[in-house]
C-alpha cells in the first residue's frame, strides 16, 4: 500500500528531531565530559562508571520518564508539549547526553595523557592547556556527535511513547517503519529503511569531512 502520509515531511521531522537532540546533547555532553575527564575530584571513577552504564539506558524508559514529566497529570503538564516534536527532542536528548559525555571523557583523557607535559613545559596556563587538549581531541568529539546522532535517528521506543506517531505531526521515519511493519506492508517498511540510511549517510558524510578537516 502506498501510504498517504507525506514522506518528505516524515524525513525532515526525523532529521529535525535527531539533529536538534544531537546538538543540545553535545552542547551539554562535551563540556561535561571534558570536566569529568580533565579535572581531578573524589569519586571520579564512580562518575565515569555511571556515565558508561547509561550507554545502555533503554530508550523506551527515557520515553516513559519524559511522558510522566509532560503528561497532563504530571509536574510539567501545563506546558502542553506531550505528543509534540519538542517532547521527542527532550527524550532523545536524554539518550544523547551519556553517550557524548562518555566518549568525550575517553577522548580527552587519551589526548591529555600524551600532551600534558609538553603543554606544561611550554608554560601554558591551565585554560590554554584545556583548549589545546580539546582541539587535539577534535576527532573524538566529532565521533561522539556521530554516535549520538546514530542512536537517536534509529530510535523508535521513545519517539513512539512521547510523540504518539501522529500522522503529519509526530510521525518520524522509525515510527513510520514500525507502523508499516505492523500493517504488514513489509516492502514499504524496507523502502523507508533505505530512506533512513540515505539520510544518515548524508549526515555522516558531512560529519566525517568535518572530522578530517577536508571540508574547509
Amino acid at each position, binding site marked *: 500500500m502506498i501510504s498517504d502520509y507525506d514522506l518528505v515531511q516524515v524525513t525532515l521531522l526525523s532529521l529535525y528531531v535527531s539533529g536538534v537532540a544531537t*546538538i543540545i546533547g553535545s552542547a551539554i555532553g562535551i563540556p561535561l565530559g571534558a570536566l569529568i575527564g580533565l579535572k581531578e575530584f573524589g569519586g571520579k571513577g564512580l562518575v565515569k562508571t555511571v556515565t558508561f552504564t547509561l550507554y545502555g539506558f533503554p530508550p523506551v524508559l527515557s520515553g516513559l520518564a519524559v511522558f510522566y514529566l509532560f503528561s497532563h497529570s504530571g509536574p510539567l503538564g501545563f506546558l502542553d508539549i506531550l505528543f509534540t516534536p519538542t517532547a521527542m527532542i527532550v527524550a532523545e536528548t536524554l539518550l544523547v547526553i551519556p553517550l557524548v559525555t562518555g566518549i568525550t571523557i575517553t577522548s580527552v583523557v587519551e589526548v591529555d595523557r600524551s600532551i600534558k607535559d609538553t603543554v606544561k613545559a611550554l608554560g601554558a596556563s591551565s585554560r590554554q592547556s584545556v583548549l589545546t587538549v580539546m582541539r587535539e581531541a577534535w576527532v573524538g568529539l566529532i565521533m561522539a556527535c556521530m554516535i549520538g546522532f546514530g542512536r537517536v535517528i534509529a530510535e523508535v521506543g521513545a519517539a513512539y511513547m512521547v510523540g504518539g506517531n501522529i500522522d503529519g505531526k509526530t510521525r518520524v521515519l522509525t515510527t513510520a517503519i514500525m507502523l508499516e511493519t505492523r500493517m*504488514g506492508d513489509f516492502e514499504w517498511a524496507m523502502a523507508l529503511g533505505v530512506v533512513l540510511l540515505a539520510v544518515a549517510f548524508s549526515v555522516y558524510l558531512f560529519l566525517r569531512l568535518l572530522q578530517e578537516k577536508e571540508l574547509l
Partner: protein
Amino acid sequence: MKLDMKWIAVVVVVILLVTATGAYLLLKGEEKQSLLLATTTSTQDSGLLDYILPYFEDEFVCEVDVIAVGSGTAIEYGKRGDVDVLLTHSPAAETAFIAGGYGEFKKKVMYNNFVIVGPTDDPAGTSDSTNASQAFLRIYENGTAGNVMFASRADNSGTYTKELSLWAKAGLNASTFSNDWYEETGLGMGDLLDFCEEKLDDNEYTLSDDATYYQRVEQGTIPDLNITYSGDPLLFNQYSVMPVNSTMHPHVNHTLAVGFADWLVEQETQELIASYERYGHRLFFPNADGYVSPSSLVVGYVGIQTLEPSQATATQLKETLIVENARALVRCCE
C-alpha cells in the same frame, strides 16, 4: 584560526537544520482545531480510520490526530487527560474508566470478530466445538498432553483480555499454565501470527482478530495458518467510544470529543462503517444503540406496509424505526 573555521562549519550544520525545520513547518500548513484520539492499533492498521475520519473532519472543520496504541495504554492516556477521546475494545477496563469518573459517557460503536487460528489439520479438533470456550478447553487438553501449543499476546491488549476471559469461561486459569505448551510472547498481533507460522511444526494455535489475520493472509506471510474456529458471539470484539471527562481535565476539547462520539453512533456513520471492506472482507459491524441495518430496514418497511395502523401500534414499532423505514424506502426507490 583553524578552530574558527570548525565553528563556521558547525554553524552551517545548524543553518541546515533550521532550514529543514522551516520547510517542515511550511509543509505542515495552517493549524486547524484538532481532536486527539487515542485508539487501538486495529482501527488504524485496518485502514478504517483513514476511511471514515475525512467525513468527520469535513463536517466539523477540524483535524483528528490519531494515536494508535494498545487499549490499556489508550485508557491510561485518557485517565491522565492526555487525549480528548477514546475508541477502544476492552469492556472491563472501559467500565472501570467510566466508574472512576474519567469519562463523560460510553457508547457502543461496532464490533469485529476474533478467530482461533492454527494448523490446517487442526490436531486439537477445535473446528467442531460447540462454542469458543469448548475450543479453548480442547487446546488446553491437547496442550498439556504435548500435542499442540498456544501462543499468547501476554500484553495489555484487548485481544489478550479476550483470551483470558475465554480461558476463564472454560474454567481454566491461564496464569497456572506451563510454558511447555503456553507461550507468553508479548508480540503484536501481526508479529504473533508470523511467529505461529514459523512454529507450525509445533502445532501452534493462537487467538487473533480477523482483520489482522486477513491482512497477513493477503501479504502471503502465513500460507499454512488457518481459521480453525469462528462465529461464536463470545468472540465478538466490542468497540466503544468515551470522551474524556472535561470537568476533571478542563483542557480537553470537550465539544469536539462529544461531537465525535455522537457522530460515530449516527445512522449515516454506522452505515459508513458497515460499508468498509478490506482484504475482500467486511471487518467492522456497527451496533450502536438505535442503529438499524439497511437490510433490516427494507424488511421492516415491507412489514409495516402490510400492517393496519392499529396493528403497527400493537407491535410497538418505535417512531424512529418508522422514520428510518421512510429513509430506506427513499433509498430503495433511488
